[in-house]
């Protein structure tokens, strides 16, 4: 393997390119028209146009990506996350074109991509499952009967769903009728498959996931958990490792379940086994993500591994050869996702020019960004513009460092969620690690981001001082004294 094409954009494409270059491989970027000057194009060795801005004519077009990869003589394709990363048809097309797909096999992706099939694999592997309907529920009557057995509160979910789409909480039997039709409609529209199933809804749940690596020689390793319980509208915003609620004995059981599922699925490459956990540390299988996760850096921070490099080696057929220290993670790590979005307007995505950008650095801080100052963030794609990740000897140090880093961060031009992160990281619930996936929904209101009296004081002062500076500098003088001399005169006159 010498030439690797990255079928993605933004921060993850940049991050993958960096590893490819570390490995001495040729990195090949692809881009849509609005991304011609995007960071991933600038840092790659080679870059080729896919098509117009519309994702389905560029980053989501299997024929285009394959065509460009062939023309670029790529040996392998890394799909990143999102776009075509969990598309079995794409993985197959890559193999059919004689290239290596850096990820699991097409059949593994297909099987684990169906949530019901994934549940059966987990059940067969002996992993704990949330009580639920044994299969899809065909109509309201069947759903109602299943609901009685499982008990409320319940979650109604699309079998083909993901990313928080196509799911609904039912508090009582009264909610069932309308929710059933709505969820089916959403499932049909979003995934082209309207089968839905029922699951017990775990109150105050935490989202905890296992990072696994598996090679083609039967070796599977568990690289610790990630706790992604801080979510807005079912989307992760902050992730950390280790989970604040995990004890060594919970972790051991958790690792065992994740490894058993990976083995049962004949999994090869990097993967994430997602679980839901209650505050006591009881966990239940949710799904397997057959790709690199957005939040993979927290695992890298505590293990010292480069997960993309491991993915490449596994795809190349090499045996896992991890230093044993990486299996005993050190310290704690926290990631904040910096989105171009307005937290005070229901997290509405924002786009436009990044007029100012200052990303944090320093002890224990890693920043993965997909933008630079002056770049026009296109409206067409995911609003994730950067990830700020901290590492500390313990959680307290990781928290202190990420708070410091977010204080330093400047993103202007478009609206970002940096101020939202500052609010969140100062919340006692977060500092104590006592959060659940509904925490933001319960605790965050736009009022939380209202300007403080101190900030207003500074703004008032700044505006007047600006007016003052302008008054001194715009005094129309022809070849007159400099403004500094003039300032002196003002001073002397006022004295």
């Amino acid at each position, binding site marked *: 393997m010498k030439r690797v094409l990255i079928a993605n954009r933004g921060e993850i494409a940049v991050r993958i390119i960096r590893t490819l270059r570390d490995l001495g491989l040729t990195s090949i970027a692809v881009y849509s028209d609005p991304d011609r000057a995007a960071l991933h194009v600038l840092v790659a060795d080679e870059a080729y146009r896919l098509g117009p801005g519309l994702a389905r004519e560029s980053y989501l077009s299997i024929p285009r990506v394959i065509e460009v990869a062939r023309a670029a003589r790529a040996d392998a394709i890394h799909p990143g996350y999102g776009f075509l990363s969990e598309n079995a048809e794409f993985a197959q097309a890559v193999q059919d074109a004689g290239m290596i797909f850096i990820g699991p096999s097409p059949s593994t992706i297909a099987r684990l991509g169906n949530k019901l099939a994934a549940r059966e694999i987990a059940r067969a592997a002996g992993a704990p499952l949330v009580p639920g309907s044994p299969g899809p529920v065909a109509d309201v009557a069947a759903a109602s009967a299943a609901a009685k057995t499982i008990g409320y509160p319940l979650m109604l979910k699309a079998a083909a769903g993901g990313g928080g789409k196509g799911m609904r909480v039912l508090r009582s039997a009264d909610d069932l009728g309308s929710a059933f039709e709505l969820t089916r409609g959403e499932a049909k529209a979003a995934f082209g498959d309207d089968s839905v199933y029922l699951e017990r809804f775990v109150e105050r749940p935490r989202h905890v996931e296992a990072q696994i690596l598996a090679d083609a020689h039967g070796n599977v390793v568990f690289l610790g958990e990630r706790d992604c319980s801080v979510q807005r509208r079912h989307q992760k915003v902050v992730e950390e490792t280790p989970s604040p609620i995990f004890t060594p004995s919970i972790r051991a059981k958790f690792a065992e379940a994740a490894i058993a599922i990976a083995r049962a699925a004949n999994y090869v490459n990097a993967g994430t086994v997602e679980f839901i956990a209650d505050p006591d540390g009881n966990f239940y299988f949710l799904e397997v993500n057959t790709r690199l996760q957005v939040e993979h850096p927290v695992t890298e921070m505590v293990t010292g591994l480069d997960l993309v490099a491991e993915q490449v080696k596994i795809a190349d057929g090499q045996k896992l050869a991890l230093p044993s220290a990486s299996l005993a993670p050190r310290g704690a790590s926290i990631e904040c996702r910096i989105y171009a979005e307005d937290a005070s307007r229901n997290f509405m995505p924002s786009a436009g020019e990044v007029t*100012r950008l200052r990303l944090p650095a320093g002890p224990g801080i890693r920043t993965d960004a997909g933008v630079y100052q002056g770049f026009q963030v296109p409206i067409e794609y995911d609003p994730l513009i950067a990830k700020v990740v901290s590492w500390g000897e313990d959680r307290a140090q990781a928290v202190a460092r990420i708070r410091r880093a977010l204080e330093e961060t*400047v*993103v*202007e031009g478009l*609206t*970002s969620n*940096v*101020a939202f992160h*500052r609010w969140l990281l100062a919340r006692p619930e977060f500092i104590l690690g006592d959060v659940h996936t509904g925490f933001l929904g319960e605790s965050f209101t736009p009022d939380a*981001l209202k*300007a403080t009296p101190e*900030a*207003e*004081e*500074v*703004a*008032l*002062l*700044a*505006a*007047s*001082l*600006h*007016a*003052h*500076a*302008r*008054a*001194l500098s*715009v*005094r*129309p*003088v022809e070849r007159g004294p400099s403004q500094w001399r003039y*300032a*002196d005169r*003002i*001073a002397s006159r*006022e*004295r």
Partner: protein
Amino acid sequence: MKFWSQLGEREQDLEVRVTGTHLDVDADGRALAADFVPLPGEEVFSLLIDGRVHEVSVEEKDGAILVTLHGQRHKVLVRHPLEKTLREVRHAGPAASGEVIESPIPGLVVALKVRVGDVVAKGQAVAVVEAMKMQNELTAQVGGTVSAIHVEEKKNVEAGTKLVSLT
């Protein structure tokens, strides 16, 4: 130089004196040492207030000053303190006639709106001075008869220059 600024319901009276390398500021009676320095190439400033570090982006729009601090934007109206006095006078009832209208700011006299002998009502515009790319209309706070005009149009004036006298 004096300023009167408003941010929503909040107001601030500010007096600035340039003292050597920094600014002596009186903000609502509180003495502060400030330093306000542009960063290269941008409308961004490093602001030190009694040594505390702040960084602000400043943009002028529709007569207001938009200050971005920590990613949050604040809309501030900066005016001459005369306008505050004027507002107070409006509520204070009849006052004695006669006043001298001075330019509150250094700038260019864009227009003189009165002639000697004109009767000027309270609140009526007498001159327009352009500064900070903004045209500032100067109005009579008390009113009276124009007894003297001290400047000409298109001339530069400094803060405190007498423009028009009313008796």
